[in-house]
């Protein structure tokens, strides 16, 4: 017994180390693949505020105000853009009220936390359910598609970045929808990959990739990236297509959350969604 007590006393630091590592194990693995997102969400506003403080400290105050002003102007223009509206025909009926109403609305937000070096990258924005943001809304930057909202609290939301191995998006190249998935394979923070484009398709390096009409999350015509490399797969009829993302994720600072106003009306009409 004395030997046992002496052993414990002599190695107490090691026993403590093991116990604390087990606690760390619970913290790391208990919080699932999206550990960052979950932690950011559950650690609530304290962590988010410290990130906000850090972001505020490193940005020029005047530049920030200018950016916010610019964001609200872009948001307003986005709302009125013809691509994002339903136009009601007026040639047979005289409609006296507004001739168009916006389908999509853009809520400006600031990125206060962002990762780009992991397999499942996420970013946190300073807008939440108080601003009408909910799960599964598209997020775009001024350059192009940035991600999809995963979850929201009252003041903050966590979005899955395009640089996430779980992200799948349907590309539109040369006004043609390709019903294959564009994914990130965790090999390069600027490059995504499309497999399954037939070699007979008339696409070439440099062609731009946009969002199409197969998603209710983004308006059609939002840039996703451009074709960087087309590699014919040997003994196959398909290309391996590498896309350089339009959004510079390491510099992601300001984004817009896309709200589809009629999503709840459209979704039940689509077969398989009822």
């Amino acid at each position, binding site marked *: 017994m004395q030997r046992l007590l002496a052993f414990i006393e002599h190695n107490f630091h090691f026993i403590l180390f093991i116990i*604390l590592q087990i606690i760390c194990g619970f913290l790391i693995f208990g919080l699932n693949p999206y550990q960052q997102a979950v932690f950011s969400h559950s650690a609530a506003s304290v962590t988010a505020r410290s990130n906000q403080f850090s972001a505020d400290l490193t940005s020029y105050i005047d530049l920030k105000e200018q950016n916010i002003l610019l964001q609200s102007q872009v948001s307003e223009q986005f709302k009125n853009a013809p691509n994002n509206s339903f136009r009601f025909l007026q040639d047979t009926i005289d409609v006296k009220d507004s001739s168009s109403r916006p389908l999509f609305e853009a809520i400006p937000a600031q990125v206060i936390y962002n990762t780009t070096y992991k397999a*499942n990258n996420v970013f946190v924005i300073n807008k939440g359910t108080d601003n009408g943001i909910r799960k599964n809304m598209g997020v775009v930057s001024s350059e192009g598609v940035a991600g999809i909202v995963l979850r929201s609290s009252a003041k903050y939301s966590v979005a899955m970045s395009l640089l996430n191995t779980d992200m799948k998006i349907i590309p539109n190249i040369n006004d043609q929808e390709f019903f294959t998935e564009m994914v990130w394979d965790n090999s390069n923070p600027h490059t995504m990959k499309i497999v399954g484009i037939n070699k007979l398709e008339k696409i070439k390096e440099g062609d731009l990739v946009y969002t199409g009409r197969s998603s209710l999350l983004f308006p059609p015509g939002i840039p996703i990236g451009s074709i960087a490399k087309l590699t014919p797969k040997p003994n196959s009829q398909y290309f391996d297509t590498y896309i350089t993302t339009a959004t510079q994720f390491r510099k992601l600072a300001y984004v817009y959350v896309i709200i589809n106003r009629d999503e709840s009306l459209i979704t039940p009409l689509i077969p398989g969604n009822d």
Partner: protein
Amino acid sequence: MTRLLYWISIFALQVLLFNHLDLTAFLVPQIFIILLITLPLHTKKIYQVLIAFGLGLLADFFVSSPGIHTSSCLFLVMLRMTILNTQDLKEEIANRLNYTARNVGVLPFSYTVLILVFFYHLYIFWIGSIGAINTYNLLVTTLTSSVFSLTVIAILQFMSLSHARE
């Protein structure tokens, strides 16, 4: 008081500057581990473990990485104990000195720091990418971040040596 100020300065540098370098995805230097590496040599092992746990938890709090920095700091402090056991530091322990290049000599200090910094970065990036480990990315990130951290640590130690000579 000076030591507390030094700890706060190094940690603030890490949280406010090095965590936001944004030069490349392969560069995520962890400078604050110098605080654990240079802990006083007479510090009891159990306190070293507790300090590593607390510091790691604080680092996790600022970058929203639950358990990752904490686990890595614990790993670092245990590795440090193992390496220091192989060095003759009785005199330094008796004089209650910190483990620095000035107190133990540049060569043994460099040897220890090189191993600790490299394995700390390897460990933290490995844990961070569990589930989707890309060996190439892991090694490149570890090497670039380690080289950067070692450079900053060398500058800090050089400043300390120069200050001592004056």
